[in-house]
């Protein structure tokens, strides 16, 4: 049912939110690697997407390196992975920035688990169509 890869990377600083998102994704059948900060992501993952990684769920606002900054960093490193941005700020400018930076979609918290799954599947399909590795 899912494409060849099945691994979702998740960067979210809020403990409760991270636990909940990881749970929804894993109940839906994905493998999940989660990180509390962009720095932890960079250190652990490095500059090449792990095999089987299909999508990055990224919080826009993070302490230290922000979600947008991480996306720019990924661009400079040619780290290609569809991104679903999540944010608790109802800020049109932030959403626009997320899209411009190349996020497949941007979800406003609080969102339902189903909305996350739909966004992630959409991003994966779009990524596959665009010929992402």
């Amino acid at each position: 049912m899912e494409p060849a890869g099945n691994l979702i990377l998740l960067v979210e600083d809020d403990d409760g939110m991270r636990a909940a998102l990881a749970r929804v994704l894993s109940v839906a059948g994905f493998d999940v690697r989660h990180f509390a900060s962009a720095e932890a992501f960079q250190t652990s993952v490095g500059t090449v997407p792990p095999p089987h990684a299909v999508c990055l769920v990224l919080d826009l606002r993070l302490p230290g390196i922000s979600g947008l900054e991480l996306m720019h960093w990924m661009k400079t490193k040619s780290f290609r992975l569809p991104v679903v941005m999540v944010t608790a700020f109802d800020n049109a400018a932030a959403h626009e920035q997320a899209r411009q930076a190349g996020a497949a979609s941007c979800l406003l918290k609080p969102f339902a688990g189903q909305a996350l799954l739909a966004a992630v599947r959409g991003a994966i399909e779009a990524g596959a169509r665009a010929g992402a590795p």
Partner: protein
Amino acid sequence: MSIDIPSPTRPAGSAVAAGELRFVLVCGGVLVATAVLSHVLAVADGSRVPWISAVVFSVIGLQALLIVGLLLQRRWRREAELEAQTYRAELYHAMRLATVGELTASIAHEINQPLGAILSNADAAEMMLEGGQSPGNELREVIADIRLDAQRASGIVRQTRSMIGKRPVATGRVDLNQIVLDVRRFMSSALTHQGVALDLQLDAGPVVVTGDTVQLQQVVLNLAVNAMDATSDIAGLVRRIDIRTVRVTGDRIELTVSDNGHGIPEADVPRLFEPFFTTKAQGCGLGLSIARGIVESHGGRIGAGNQASGGAVFRLVFPAAPESMAASDSECAPLLGLSDGALHQRAMPPSPKASSTDGARG
């Protein structure tokens, strides 16, 4: 850095009124005694009541009127003072609302985190049930997390309410370290959101002053929010706020709030605490004037200046609360009812290092 701390101004109206009244009462007493004596002497003499008695009795009448007038004036003055106090409390409250209002976006963000987690957890639970297996323990974990997040959301509401609620002034022993920690807790979301680092350097012992917790929180919050704004347009540097408490001498406690913004133009320094003086586009210019009012009503003083390195620094000096009142730390319990870290007792999924996946359960 040199910080000019203006001396507090203190009204002395009631003392003057008491002096006037005493003077009138003494003069009146002497006159009454004279008149009564001359009248009694004249009556005992059997002669006619002298004209001077009539004059003196008229004077006594006037004196009595004057006394009544002064008493009334004193009462009106007291009523006016009470009214002014009420207006002042209203003004402080309005200003507190405005300061907290500046953090609304962050508070909404902070409350949306647990709400989002609850929604996702509820969906996950539903998917587990629909999966047909009996998820037992896993479901229990989800429920426990939902409960934690609901408590977290209500904690934020409680915290916000305690910051903006109307409360009568309650004077007691207040640990300034605790005030600073409360303010940090309250601002943590805004600080993260705006990318501002808040460094605390708190005196090792409790630094206890006599005063009102909410008012003192208001002052520190106001200064910290100002500092956050002041650093909003620095380029290429980490935005920083430093709050420091230190017991300077046995009976003097100092609290400083500094930032690494552009500082205060020297010309503005003397007028900074004047009402309606503002450098903010949307400021009303009352924050610092109210902060000074609060600090001075606590017997303290506040001053502002620039650090050698450039940013602004606000220095508050308070008299320490007398030690005699059996200084027990429990009296200085956090007002917000939440200590740092109290909420992070969640069973986290395995960390990326411990195990690279959360395990497929579909």
